[in-house]
């Protein structure tokens, strides 16, 4: 899936992100529960990873040379499921089974039930440690594969994230690129009211990371940042992606209540109309 930056058609990627959002909304409505806001805010980032940057083979999910993606904010499972379906890991029809009994599409990603998932997540704060371990293992092997890890902004309130932040810098994991989906909201409200997380950039810089601060809905900015991260040596890179929770659907945007609410059928209809424009 690697492409030269010059030949990247941003419009194609933006269309793909729109498709991801449509699938996210449809599967959540069908499921009747799940995390809408944080799936939509991460849609552009995940699109850039799966349809521009990452190396993988859906026909051989365990391909040794693949790049790895860890969704540390596991509640955004719908965005990952949409990306896996649209890139050919499984049939799109399966998305309708999200959160239902017997489905491999668990409420939070489960690596034992669905291929394409590197590790089960859902309990916040743990993905970065796992990503570090993978990056260390790849370095031992002399592999050129890279590791990507997507965190939520509320998630960085977990202490383990900062343990892992130290580890990645200490072991100079330059094959690791983490991304924070900084949508500014968490279940109980605005991050700044629940537990201050700013200044995010300074914090990660102080922990020894190369930090890139971008608009997480600007496809070119995301693509540029992912490319830049690959050139940084001796340090892990953190992309702080400033996003809007519920992005793409006007009546979900910035609404804290849609952290853990699925759209109703009426809302879905209106949302699909907006996205069709």
């Amino acid at each position: 899936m690697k492409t030269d930056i010059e030949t990247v058609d941003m419009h194609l990627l933006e269309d793909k992100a729109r498709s991801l959002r449509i699938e996210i909304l449809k599967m959540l409505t069908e499921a009747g529960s799940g995390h809408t806001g944080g799936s939509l805010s991460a849609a552009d980032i995940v699109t850039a990873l799966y349809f521009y940057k990452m190396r993988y083979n859906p026909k051989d999910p365990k391909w040794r040379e693949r790049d790895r993606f860890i969704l540390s904010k596991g509640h955004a499972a719908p965005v990952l499921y949409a990306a896996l379906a649209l890139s050919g890991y499984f049939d799109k029809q399966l998305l309708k089974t999200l959160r239902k009994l017997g489905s491999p599409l668990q409420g939070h990603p489960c690596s034992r039930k669905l291929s394409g998932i590197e590790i089960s997540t859902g309990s916040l704060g743990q993905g970065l440690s796992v990503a570090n371990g993978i990056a260390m293992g790849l370095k031992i092997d002399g592999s050129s594969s890279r590791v990507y890890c997507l965190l939520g902004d509320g998630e960085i309130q977990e202490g383990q994230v900062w343990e892992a932040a130290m580890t990645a810098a200490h072991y100079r994991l330059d094959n690791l690129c983490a991304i924070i989906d900084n949508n500014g909201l968490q279940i109980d409200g605005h991050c700044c009211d629940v537990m201050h997380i700013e200044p995010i950039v300074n914090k990660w810089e102080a922990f020894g990371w190369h930090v890139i601060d971008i608009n997480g809905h600007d496809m070119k900015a995301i693509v540029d940042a992912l490319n830049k991260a690959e050139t940084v040596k001796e340090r892990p890179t953190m992309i702080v992606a400033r996003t809007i929770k519920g992005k793409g659907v006007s009546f979900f945007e910035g609404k804290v209540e849609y952290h853990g609410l699925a759209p109703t059928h009426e809302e879905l209809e209106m949302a699909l109309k907006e996205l069709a424009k």
Partner: protein
Amino acid sequence: MGERVQKTEQDVQSAGKKPVATRDAYGEALIELGRKRNNLVVLDADLSGSTKTGKFAKSFPERFFNLGVSEQDLIGTASGLSLTGKLPFASTFAVFETGRAWEQIRQTVCYPNLNVKLVATHSGITVGEDGASHQAIEDVALMRVLPNMTVIVPADGNETRQVIHTIADYYGPVYVRLGRAKVPPVMPDDYEFRIGKAYTFYIGKDANIVAMGIMVAKALEAAKLLKDDGIDTGVINMSTVKPLDTDTLLKAARKCGLLFTAEEHSIIGGLGSAVCEFLSEEHPARVIRIGIKDDFGCSGKSEELLKLYGLTTENIVKTVQEALRQ
């Protein structure tokens, strides 16, 4: 189990049956294993001197990762390494490994069923002077409750060495509980450890003691004293607490309906509980649990603490005698 390993064990055995701490046997076994397996990686959380992983670190620095004082990150990192085909052994003190990082073990080791080996030292009250904060007496309970987890508590250096080699050949999460203090060798020279297989020293007609870890040696001494007293007492080393060797338990329970469990652990959730859970459903028998009775440890010399909490040969003898008198 390779022939070379067997030989080494016999060498150790014939070298004079000296008491050895299970953590020391672990340190040695890791080096043997490191030579044999290129994919072995070892992780520690700033206690490599105490857990004895420091020896491996010296021999194989490129395959050793110190995570600093961060047990949660230790577990996640080990999981990540296993995802690249490495065989991670992650060590720290039992209370921190199983307590501080319990949910990390649940989420990133057991739920995805990864090949991560958790080998914790300084279990139980024999940690001694450091006191209750450092004495894990709940760790077996915490690990036993997790699906996919295997729980092993070796009784001596010989068994520890074999356990470490055996679990390297087994796929899946394993928790191994080791101690700080030296323990006398108890397992016979020709003993071969197998996961899920208890070792029966003897099955008694009057009473049987099912023990783990350091309590195996004490149970054996107690059985000897009880025999002198005319009480035919058997001893079983239940070194795999999960999966429990239910066949061996049934054999003992069928021979005699009075069993004792002996563990340097809380009587809640550990070996005693495991034995009771099984027998109460399959072959009801009287089971008396010898262990720490819903209490924390405290500072003191390890021998003093064992006495204070009733983890002695004398107390086992007394408990068996009293039960038979009732």
